[in-house]
């Protein structure tokens, strides 16, 4: 294990520090709140000559991902950052980057999608991109955002994966919130991420390759099946990277961050920063003798279905907290709930009491009392044996 140096950093700056240490060949990015700090800080590193990166100050997020696609296909190590509408504007290119198997790392500082316009945190941006073929990792803290950025690079560029990775954290909550963040020594990061050796590169002009050919009915299906296989087979490789980084940093990097789940009767499954709030409340309830637990998936794509089912299947009642709505889904449930309930069914678990809470849209605060109320609800559901409403809302004026 290598000692980290601890600094007071906001989550966005923590990510830009990770980018500085990775020292990618190309960064193409466009400013958008609450991601702007990432691009600003990185631009300063470029201006000060402390990275060798070619920074492309593009005119839109679509152009950011377009330039990243060009640079990555050229054979470069490539990173970018965005949020919300910027991610939405990239949409077309997200699918193209994944379809071309280009190992780009994108840091997303999660923010609500318009309309109405809102700059604060929810997960509607990244959740909309969950089927785009990108690996998705969600961070609870600035520390995790830093750690995940470094691991994302390794995962994306693994020769058996070669798939872009979206590394997400909560806008403002961790993006702007200053915490104590441990930074590994530059040389250690350099060794950890290693040198990127592209399998195919446009700039290898002696061996001309064609990227992005028109794919007719003969082969499109086969390419998509192969892409699906790659992302779904990535889990063990991702775990290897996680465990290597755990040994290096001394900070555990589980696929599924579980707290007191061994004997938990009531549990909350939630992504990102709300994992911390939930754990704080759960700690208090445990002290009162209520057997509560928290499950926080760090990896969302590929979806760690078996791990989640294994963790929650013994509970008396489970609450999934979704910071996004899947519009038109049954009862207006959120994407995490949809995935978890599908996973339960596929593992043969049909009797579990499980409910969904939509929370925190557009940056609405999630308060400890609300988490407490969720656990109260879960106990009531278990006691009465009635699930009641499948989809509920936290912090919404009724």
């Amino acid at each position, binding site marked *: 294990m290598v000692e980290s140096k601890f600094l007071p950093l906001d989550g966005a700056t923590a990510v830009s520090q990770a980018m500085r240490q990775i020292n990618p060949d190309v960064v193409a990015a466009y400013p958008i709140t609450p991601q702007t700090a990432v691009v600003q800080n990185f631009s300063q590193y470029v201006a000060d000559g402390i990275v060798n990166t070619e920074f492309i100050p593009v005119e839109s997020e679509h152009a950011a991902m377009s330039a990243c696609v060009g640079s990555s296909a050229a054979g470069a190590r490539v990173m970018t950052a965005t949020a919300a509408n910027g991610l939405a504007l990239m949409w077309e290119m997200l699918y193209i980057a994944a379809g071309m198997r280009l190992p780009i790392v994108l840091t997303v500082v999660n923010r609500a999608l318009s309309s109405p316009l809102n700059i604060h945190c929810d997960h509607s941006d990244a959740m909309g991109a969950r089927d785009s073929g990108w690996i998705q990792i969600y961070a609870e803290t600035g520390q995790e955002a830093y750690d995940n950025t470094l691991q994302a690079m390794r995962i994306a560029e693994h020769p058996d994966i070669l798939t872009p990775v979206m590394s997400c954290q909560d806008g403002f909550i961790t993006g702007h919130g200053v915490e104590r963040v441990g930074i590994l020594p530059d040389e250690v990061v350099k060794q950890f991420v290693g040198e990127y050796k592209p399998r195919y590169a446009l700039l290898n002009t002696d061996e001309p390759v064609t990227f992005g050919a*028109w794919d007719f009915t003969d082969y499109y299906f086969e390419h998509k099946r192969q892409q699906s296989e790659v992302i779904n087979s990535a889990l063990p490789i991702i775990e290897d990277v996680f465990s290597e980084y755990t040994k290096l940093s001394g900070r555990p990097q589980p696929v599924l961050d579980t707290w007191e789940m061994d004997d938990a009767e009531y549990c909350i499954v939630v992504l990102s920063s709300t994992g911390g709030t939930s754990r704080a409340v759960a700690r208090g309830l445990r002290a009162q003798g209520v057997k509560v637990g928290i499950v926080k998936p760090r990896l969302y794509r590929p979806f760690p279905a078996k791990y989640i089912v294994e963790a929650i299947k013994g509970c008396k009642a489970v609450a999934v907290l979704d910071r996004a709505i899947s519009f038109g889904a049954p009862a207006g449930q959120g994407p995490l709930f949809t995935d978890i309930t599908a996973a339960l069914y596929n593992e043969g678990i049909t009797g579990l009491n499980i409910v969904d809470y939509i929370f925190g849209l557009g940056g609405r605060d999630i308060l400890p009392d609300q988490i407490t109320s969720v656990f109260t609800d879960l106990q009531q559901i278990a006691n009465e044996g009635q699930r009641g409403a499948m989809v509920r809302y936290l912090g919404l004026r009724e």
Partner: protein
Amino acid sequence: MTDRIRINLKDIVNNEERLAPGHRLCGGCGEPTIMRMILHAIEGPVVISTATGCLEVSTTVYPTTAWQVPWIHSAFENSATTISGVEAAYKALKRSGKIPADKEIKFLAVGGDGASYDIGFQWISGALERGHKLVYVCLNNEAYMNTGIQRSGATPKGANTTTSPVGDVIPGKTQWRKPFTRIMAAHDIPYVAQAAPHNYRDLMTKVKKAFAADGPAVLNILAPCPRGWRTESDQTMVLTKLAADTCYWPLYEVDHGKTVVNYKPREKKPVADWLKVQGRFRHLFRPAYASILEEIQARIDQEWERLLKEEAAG
């Protein structure tokens, strides 16, 4: 400056064909001839990005490709941005020593008129403003031919397309084409030119000048589409010559802000000579549309005069 460029076919005839046969562009399409001329005018390695369109789908049908150079297509609107990413990677990898310091690579982005005048307009503008060392080529066949001849910002007034059809009350496209070449020149980049393949010497000279420029360059090249223009496949070069002779498509360049008209017809032909040989303008010769023909002629005259004035202004 590169003022003494001589194009001699005997010097290049033994060059490798970097766009191989077996591509599936229509017989008589202007695009592959132009691409061959461009590739024969480029010395040394080149990486190409191509926008979605006829050229892209016809030259790369997985698992085949007609390209013998590194080539990428990512989307419709972003070939300029994609190549700017490749160019940035080249600079970065050269700096880090992964590409030898003496290895020169050229960067070419290609798009149709839809990709250039319309959907990719902002992407091109951004790439030019950032000053990447690249050449952007618009293969201009004046409509969305790949999707079946829909009007674009490049489609000339009066043209019959599937989204500007001739009807009982509307005589084809009612708007003038966008002055794309002038807008590109307004970016104050080192080199912008208009060309056409019948004059291969002029076209290939401009390619060489564009790649020799000390910054981004844009070429707008007229590329006849027999299918969309309703012309015979062997008329491709005849048509672009008519376009130049009628001053519908002046061959000119803006070299570091200085406009030079590279071809001035001894006798400027009436624009009707250009229009009447193409099925897409056939309806304009109905007596009812005589005023549109006059409007078009007046507009061409006005544009030509303005160009000559710009040249005279130096």
